[in-house]
């Protein structure tokens, strides 16, 4: 166990160094990327915040609570980008659909270790997480939230759950890339777009059945709305505090099982299709 953790730490450090090298080698390009990502992170949530300001809140949340939720969303999607945006480890259907898993299979590492570490971009991919942390901190200050160790741990647990839902759902969708590599090459990004385009809306105004749907089967509400409501002490329905981590665990488990099942297909049929682009660009 200790050896495995040490190896993971060394691999994270390796990919951090490689990301830093990219920054050093092409600083101007990297700065432009960082700036545009920062603007994009802020712009994506601005519309909802402006609506909240204009109407004094949205869906049973006041404007500061909406800001807290948007901060949580930006932080969660930012962490996803920080850990899974590099080398298509999150958009895994691209690697499957392009026949690029072969590159992983010739490395003497378990696949989960490769997929957990290869996407780490601490320099070029940290803007979203930084913006999210700042927005969340500002919102927490305006709401005068008491920061205690248990609340901080709960916050971190919910962040982990939110990132887990994003990764897990992408991996569930990517199962089809094993059987239909051409048609499903982009399926994980389609799933990602679905989650992120709904994930920053306060869902309080929706009927209960729609809320239920969006925190279970299509868990876009698990990205920020449900955890923010729980952290703000406004549980939208009874049992939500237990349901949220459970959904996250189930989604992650389904993602892992889907990938494992897909690997069995890969083992049987392999991939007759190979695209050189995009694996390590």
């Amino acid at each position, binding site marked *: 166990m200790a*050896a*495995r953790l040490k*190896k993971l730490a*060394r*691999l994270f450090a*390796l990919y951090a160094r*490689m990301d830093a*090298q*990219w920054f050093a*080698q092409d600083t101007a390009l990297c700065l432009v990327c960082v700036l545009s990502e920062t603007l994009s992170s802020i712009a994506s949530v601005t519309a909802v915040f402006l609506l909240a300001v204009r109407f004094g809140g949205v869906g049973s949340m006041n404007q500061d609570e909406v800001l807290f939720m948007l901060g949580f969303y930006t932080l969660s999607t930012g962490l996803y980008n920080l850990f899974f945006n590099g080398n298509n480890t999150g958009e895994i259907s691209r690697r499957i659909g392009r026949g690029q*898993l*072969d*590159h992983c*299979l*010739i*490395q*003497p*590492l*378990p696949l989960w270790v490769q997929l957990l570490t290869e996407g780490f971009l601490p320099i070029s991919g940290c803007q979203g997480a930084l913006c999210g942390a700042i927005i969340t901190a500002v919102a927490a200050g305006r709401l005068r939230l008491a920061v205690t160790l248990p609340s901080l741990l709960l916050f971190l647990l919910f962040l982990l759950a939110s990132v887990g839902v994003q990764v897990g759902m992408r991996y569930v969708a990517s199962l089809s890339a094993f059987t239909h590599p051409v048609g499903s090459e982009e399926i994980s990004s389609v799933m990602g777009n679905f989650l992120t385009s709904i994930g920053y809306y306060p869902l309080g105004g929706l009927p209960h059945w729609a809320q239920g749907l969006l925190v279970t089967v299509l868990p876009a509400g698990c990205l920020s709305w449900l955890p923010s409501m729980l952290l703000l002490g406004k549980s939208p329905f009874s049992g939500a505090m237990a349901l949220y981590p459970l959904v996250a665990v189930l989604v992650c488990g389904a993602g892992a099982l889907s990938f494992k099942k897909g690997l069995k297909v*890969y*083992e*049987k*049929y*392999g991939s*007759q299709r*190979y695209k*050189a682009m995009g*694996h*390590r*660009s």
Partner: protein
Amino acid sequence: MKNMARSDTRQWDTAVELHGVCKTFRQKQTGDGLPRNLLHPVYSEIRALDRVNLTIYRGEFVAYAGPNGAGKSTTFKLLCGMLGADSGTVRTCGLDPLRRRIPLMRQTGVLLGSRTELWWDHPVISSFKWKKEVWDIDEKTYARQLDLAVDMLDLGPFLHTFARELSLGQRMRADLGMMLLHDPQLILLDEPTLGLDVLAKRRMIDFLKSLHREQGRTILVTSHDLDDLTEMAQRIVMLAQGRIAFDGSLPELRAVAGSARHVTVDCPACPALPGCTHLKSEQGRHTFSFNPAMLPVGDLLAAISRLPDVRDVQLSDAPIEGVIADLYRSWKA
């Protein structure tokens, strides 16, 4: 993890062992009309490998050849653990590639000619350092293998160049150098000379030969260029329609294919040579094939000496490409 992997790196005498290996793929066929495609899709079965038995011992240099679709790449993928066999046994370095992929990859070097393992947006040396970390290569081995690769493959001039800026020949050399960094005992090369110019190809062949001769590495190589394969390898294994159609040395291959020889006569008009088959005439050089068993060389030369205006005569073996093309045609018939 590291300790576990190290303990799996044990000695083996048989590098590759395939016993009764079958592998069949299904291909969906597009039929007439949408309803039929949706409700009753038609599949055809392609038997990529059909009861293949093959043993390669430590220290052998084996060429694995065959026409397109013969099953070469499928065999490679089975040996690397990228595919599972439908039936039969596959062992690489004494290990089951599917179940023991990680220890296997510590002692095996794989180069897929059409793909690169280099990091595209990084200098070549960064990819090498990446490999050192991922493969847990110790400093001593890394320094020794890096020196070897830089020296023999002449990587020095582009070691700090971005992989995306390399020519194809440079990229292949860099990939080969990277493949060697963990000092693999078994080397699997799929089309390593693909797309290389004459000079780059020569360098690659010389390198592989010296790697085998001086370091005793076990090498299994595929290529479409049969002249390259026959120059490199001691043993040639040929696949046809998923089965091993030939397994032996180059002289044995020539014997199987028939001992046809060529004679080229340099004279103004194309002569008639009884017992010979005219192949081509170019700028006063006329090439014929003949079978020495049917037409002794002495008789042939006597017949040529009686021809008027003969300026030169040249005898040669039939090119191996032609020999093998004839074999492929006979297997398909």
